[in-house]
């Protein structure tokens, strides 16, 4: 056995050495020397060719090995950036979108389109055309659509100047469909167990007359015509409001309710900037009277006040104090449709509660917000903010206000803004009942 092993080993080695190796040598020699003699010129060219040194590696092997965990960790982020970049580069190039881009954007900046999103209205776009009728006029078209086909469309033409007069006219035409709104009952002590849902379809026409008194004060008279339809919601998991209540229990629970209104606005705005203000005040006073046409069942007046004080603390850190109130009073022998009652629970009121959580005739709301910048980009600033909201609804807020039934919501968020407007606002609100997330883009 051992002899056979040794014999096999020698045999292979012998074969390799005697047969293969000479051929390898011949092949090597043949390639190392030219077959024919080289001319002097060729030899000179070979000598004159620069001898380029070896390029050095960008990263040494040991660097690559040791940083591999970190590289693997950021790989998804890198791919995300690249993906977003590729998508934007495709969408951003006007040539690819061609005629549509040219239609939506003008070189002089008077016409442009921007995306928009809100958790309530859904995603869509807004198209602006400035100076269409006269200098300062603004035509705006907004279209958004959300989950379960909730929709909002609005066409507005603002700032129309009557010849030679300082009064400006606004005209707004709109439609909104909200498919799964919540109703918890009326009063400050409703519970989440009382929740039912409904769909609301609202159409409106507004005609306004504006007058300015200096740069800070403006007043507006508004004539409105609205039609409300209340239907069953598309939410299959909850009770429908229209099934649970009747029109007699809850005024407004019907279709084709047309209400004509007249409102008066007083606005005082002394903010240092519209987007991300750090100082100044904002006061909105609104009084309106509303009456149903055709049936004459609904009729009421409403007064709203919304006061905000912006206090600059230091280096762009801002405290915003807000006090808002609303009173609704029906006319004699008339009622107020439930959707026109004062309401707490939207992102504009107390954050952290469902929309429409508390409804009653009157409402009072207080809010403290603290803004501080975390990042400034080109002309935009990214601010983080913390907030505390507190409010209450009541039949008569003056008589029925109680600290015990004050509803509290708190939380924080991020806002991206420039000096003119807000581009994005993301908030998380927490109440005794739940967390709520809000996102608005170019709203």
């Amino acid at each position: 056995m051992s002899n056979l092993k040794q014999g096999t080993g020698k045999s292979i080695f012998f074969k390799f050495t005697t047969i293969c190796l000479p051929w390898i040598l011949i092949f090597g020699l043949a390639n190392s020397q030219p077959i024919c003699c080289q001319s002097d010129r060729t030899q000179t060219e070979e000598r004159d060719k620069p001898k380029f040194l070896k390029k050095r590696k960008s990263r040494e092997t040991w660097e690559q090995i040791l940083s591999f965990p970190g590289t693997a960790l950021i790989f998804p982020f890198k791919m995300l950036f690249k993906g977003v970049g590729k998508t934007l580069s495709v969408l951003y190039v006007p040539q690819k979108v061609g005629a549509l881009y040219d239609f939506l954007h003008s070189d002089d900046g008077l016409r442009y389109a921007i995306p928009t999103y809100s958790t309530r209205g859904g995603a869509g776009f807004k198209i602006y055309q400035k100076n269409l009728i006269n200098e300062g006029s603004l035509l705006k078209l907004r279209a958004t659509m959300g989950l379960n086909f909730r929709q909002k469309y609005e066409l507005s033409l603002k700032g129309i100047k009557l010849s030679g007069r300082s009064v400006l006219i606004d005209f707004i035409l709109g439609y909104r469909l909200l498919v799964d709104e919540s109703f918890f009952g009326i009063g400050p002590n409703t519970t989440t167990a009382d929740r039912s849902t409904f769909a609301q379809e609202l159409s409106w026409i507004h005609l306004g007359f504006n007058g300015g008194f200096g740069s800070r004060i403006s007043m507006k008279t508004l004539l409105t015509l609205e039609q409300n339809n209340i239907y069953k919601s598309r939410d299959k998991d909850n009770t429908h409001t229209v099934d649970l209540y009747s029109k007699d229990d809850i005024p407004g629970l019907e279709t084709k309710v047309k209400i004509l209104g007249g409102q008066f606005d007083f606005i005082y705005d002394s903010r240092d900037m519209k987007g991300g203000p750090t100082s100044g005040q904002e006061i909105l006073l609104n009084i309106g009277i509303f009456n149903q046409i055709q049936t004459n069942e609904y009729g009421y007046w409403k007064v709203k006040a919304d006061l905000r004080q912006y206090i600059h603390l230091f280096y762009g850190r801002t405290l915003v104090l807000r006090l808002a109130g609303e009173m609704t009073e029906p006319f004699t022998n008339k009622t107020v449709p439930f959707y026109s009652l004062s309401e707490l629970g939207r992102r504009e009121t107390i954050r952290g509660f469902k929309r429409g959580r508390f409804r009653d005739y009157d409402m009072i709301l207080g809010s403290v917000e603290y803004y501080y910048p975390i990042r400034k980009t080109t002309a935009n600033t990214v601010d983080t903010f913390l907030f505390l909201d507190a409010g209450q609804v009541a039949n008569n807020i003056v008589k029925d206000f109680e600290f015990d039934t004050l509803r509290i919501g708190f939380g924080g968020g991020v806002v991206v803004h420039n000096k003119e407007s807000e581009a994005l606002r993301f908030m998380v609100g927490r109440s005794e009942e739940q967390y709520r997330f809000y996102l608005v883009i170019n709203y």
Partner: protein
Amino acid sequence: MCLPRTFFIITLSTILVGIIGCASKRLKFKDAEPVRYFNDIHSIPMPESVRTERFDYYATVLPSRPELKAQIIPTGQYALDVNSIDEVPASSWYIPRLGYETISPEDLLFGPTELGPPRLPITVIRVRNPEHNPRFLVYDRRNIYYLIKMDPPGYPNIATNSSFIVNRLFWGFGCHVPEDHLFSFSNEDIKIDPESRIRSSELDSILTRVALPVQGSYKAVASRIIEGQPLGPISEKGVRKDDPNDLFPHQKRRVLRGFRVFCALTNMCDISTDNTLDMYVGEEGKGFVKHYLVDFDDAFGTHAAREKRLWAGYNQLFSLNDILKNLFTIGFRIEDWEKVKPSPWRSVGSFESTFFRAKDWKETHPFEPIRNSQPADNYWAAKIVGALTREHFEILVEKSGYPEPGAKDYMIQTLMERRHKILKYFLGLVTPIELDHYDEGKLILKNMNKIFLKNESKDSLYVAHFYDGYDREISKPMQFVSHLAILNVAIDNAIIQKSNGYLRVDISIERGTEKGEIPVEFHFRQKPNSRIQLVGVVH
């Protein structure tokens, strides 16, 4: 113990030992003259032109920050384009000027001038960025092509002055730069090329988007189009693959790493690949690639004024570190740039020196060579900045023209203060001592900190250690105290003999304002008659 586990432990230990061994390996230098000129201009075929895709650039740069990558070890390594005495030889990347030759203020003012400013009238061929920061490609009456840049509206002189002054400064630093000149023109001096697609009304409209003319004259800076074939920007990392002359990864080039210092002085915070340009110079097949730095108009306070970024020079565009710090400190962390107020002069903007800190200066978009810069790289660049004097700044500022009263003096003072802070910080990262020469048993040394900052009033305690070629200490350390900038260190013959042909002298400063963390190493080889010759320097 089972076999796979044993194998794993042995392998891991080997790797670790190897790494530690490589990390601690000292440099040893050959007996050769240092390379003063690196020949990287061999004839090559024309490489392919490259472009930077903006989003690809962001995708590569922004998420690749060390903190995001959880980098275990720093990526910076010793620069590869340096010679044995820790200097950068001349090449297609760099020409030693300030600090190596006598560059008078007049020389600096003349700079890269060859053909001079455009001779009016100028004829417009094309306009780039007509909406924001317009640039005109023109030719003058000699058919010489220039790129014309102007000031942003509301900020006269800010961009044109910045472009001219910083162009000259970077020329002085040793970079290849285009020929930039300040000049003025009126509406009558500008024509449109018949084959251009620009209309006269369009040109008039574009001219309303720049700073207003003064007495009918627009001020502009004309950058002569560099001769050759443009190949696109210099990549931040790696090499140009089809350029055999390009040997060293760019993030490991001291010439580019030194931008941390040069850009901090001038607040050229928008440094990125867009500010670089590779040009193929020469005939096709017989040329080579030359590397230029271009576009200096966003230095000083221009970037902050044009882009409304008061934080330019203090923060990067995206810094997760800063965002998280700001987020969790709930607004109580005040960053330096928040205290900066624009100066009263529109031609200066927010360029300042009070809150400027050399250590914390940052470019807007992370630039890989800057992020990889080492103390030795910054020290090399700081020495070059140290060669600038007040007279250099005065002549450049005077030529640029700051019409607002007080602006000129403010600019000169600010540049001097920034220079001082840069020198103080970057010279302090190493032991800032240079060998002037060796003379009859004495090392004549220069303390660059005392030379540049003129603080000879204070004593410094120096310690010198002597080693042979095997890292063995061959003599007791020598201590000496001096307040002078020039030092004499006697080297005993016995030390030279004990060194057995290779002597290393490590000098550190133990006490003094210029105390550095890393001692400087001077490497010598023994010559006949007990003489020693410098063969290497490590900072």
